[in-house]
């Protein structure tokens, strides 16, 4: 089953009223969401809002307690992570998407289980991320955080995913690196991949996202085109009346 087989109009990923809980404590209270192919959808919100939990539900690491998870038109509640992975879903987990004690090349070699040759993976990767080409024989763990994330993405892309889930891609990285990474994300989306980004740091991702939603305390409190969401962000993150400033620092009122 390839997720690519989905009907063009059906979104690659759809959540309907998804709830999730750790033990008795519910942390996601009914989330609706659509991620169409060839677009970047961003979920923003402060830490502890339930964003990562939602990702876990999508990739099968945590069962939804209610609602439907639909990938390429098929309800996949209860599918295991490796089943979903084979269906074309790929998650880059927060801060640990690489093997630190393997070289860049060896990391890429770990992506050859999907049947692609190492040579073709290397070629495509070094084309997209020239910096990785320069460091192909370096241990991944000794590279900078940004390069590590590039490698994580490169390895994920080598598996030809239909749906790419990115968890806190920008965590701990300097803004300039984050921009570079998101430029690559946008490019990947243009190639037809559906991308769901979960981010605490909103600024850069809003520049590349086609749609965005703000999640606070396990609920989506606002969603729409990125431009319309800017003013809700400050309130979501720092409390208070919010809206005093847009994220770009200009006063709104």
């Amino acid at each position, binding site marked *: 089953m390839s997720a690519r087989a989905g009907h063009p109009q059906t979104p690659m990923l759809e959540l309907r009223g998804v709830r999730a809980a750790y033990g008795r404590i519910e942390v996601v209270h009914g989330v609706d969401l659509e991620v169409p192919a060839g677009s970047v959808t961003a979920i923003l919100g402060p830490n502890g809002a339930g964003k990562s939990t939602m990702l876990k539900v999508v990739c099968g690491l945590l069962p939804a307690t209610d609602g439907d998870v639909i990938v390429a038109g098929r309800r996949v509640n209860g599918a295991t992570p490796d089943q979903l992975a084979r269906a074309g879903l790929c998650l880059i987990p927060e801060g640990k998407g690489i093997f630190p004690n393997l070289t860049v090349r060896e990391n890429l070699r770990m992506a050859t289980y999907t049947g692609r040759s190492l040579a073709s993976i290397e070629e495509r990767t070094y084309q997209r991320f020239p910096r990785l080409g320069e460091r192909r024989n370096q241990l991944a763990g000794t590279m900078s955080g940004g390069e590590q994330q590039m490698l994580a993405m490169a390895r994920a892309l080598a598996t030809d995913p239909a749906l790419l889930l990115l968890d806190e891609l920008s965590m701990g990285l300097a803004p300039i690196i984050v921009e570079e990474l998101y430029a690559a994300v946008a490019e990947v989306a243009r190639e037809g991949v559906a991308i769901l980004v979960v981010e*605490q740091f909103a600024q850069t991702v809003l520049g590349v996202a086609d749609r965005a939603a703000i999640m606070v305390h396990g609920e989506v409190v606002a969603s729409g085109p990125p431009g319309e969401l800017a003013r809700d962000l400050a309130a979501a993150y720092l409390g*208070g009346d919010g809206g005093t400033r847009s994220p770009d620092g200009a006063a709104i009122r």
Partner: protein
Amino acid sequence: MAALDCSGVTVSFGGHLALDDVDVTAADGAVTGLIGPNGAGKTTLFNVVCGLLTPSRGVVSLGGRELNRLPPYKRARLGLARTFQRLELFGLLTVRENVLVAADVRGTMGAAEVEAVIERVGLAGRIDDRVDELPTGQARLVEIARALATRPRVLLLDEPASGLDERETDELGRLLRELAAEGMAVLLVEHDVRLVMEVCDLIHVLDFGRIIAVGDAATVRSDEAVLAAYLGGSLEAS
């Protein structure tokens, strides 16, 4: 003089500066907040303060006494107590026993007072349950009770509200205010910014290992550097 004073604390992990010349103070009788995005270095600072991690530079002092060379247990005996973000409970023991372990170390509390402390954090109903069996939120409260049982002068709380529901969070906020009113210095690391804004007298904001802002809730909330840190991107870039 501040109860807890960290000055110039610097920690590097293999070339990466986890804390870069950080100054943080916590005054007696006040709740001091320490916020910042994930990975900013908050827990690292706590580990430095209580002696689990040696800084490459900087001084930590408690009530004017320098702590740098003291092992963790001696710092605790001088009045420093903490809770852990990744819970460090005595899972084989009951709630009561967990607190008793701390109270017995120097005999800071008798059995009756231990019960009172447990009641104070709202766990009277589960006093004889094994802590392994508690949900995360309540387990965090056990850590607070355990820390209180050493009768600390300075209390470090690492994400005490995660796993608590809204009502429990409000109660926690009230408890922190009470403790401060009794003269304790409370240093609070917390993701629930609403709680921090409500209860803290002074807030430090940490980003990439540096303090980028200090002030009360209103100041911090409208600080551009803070907004940038939380929302990502640099102001100059946009």
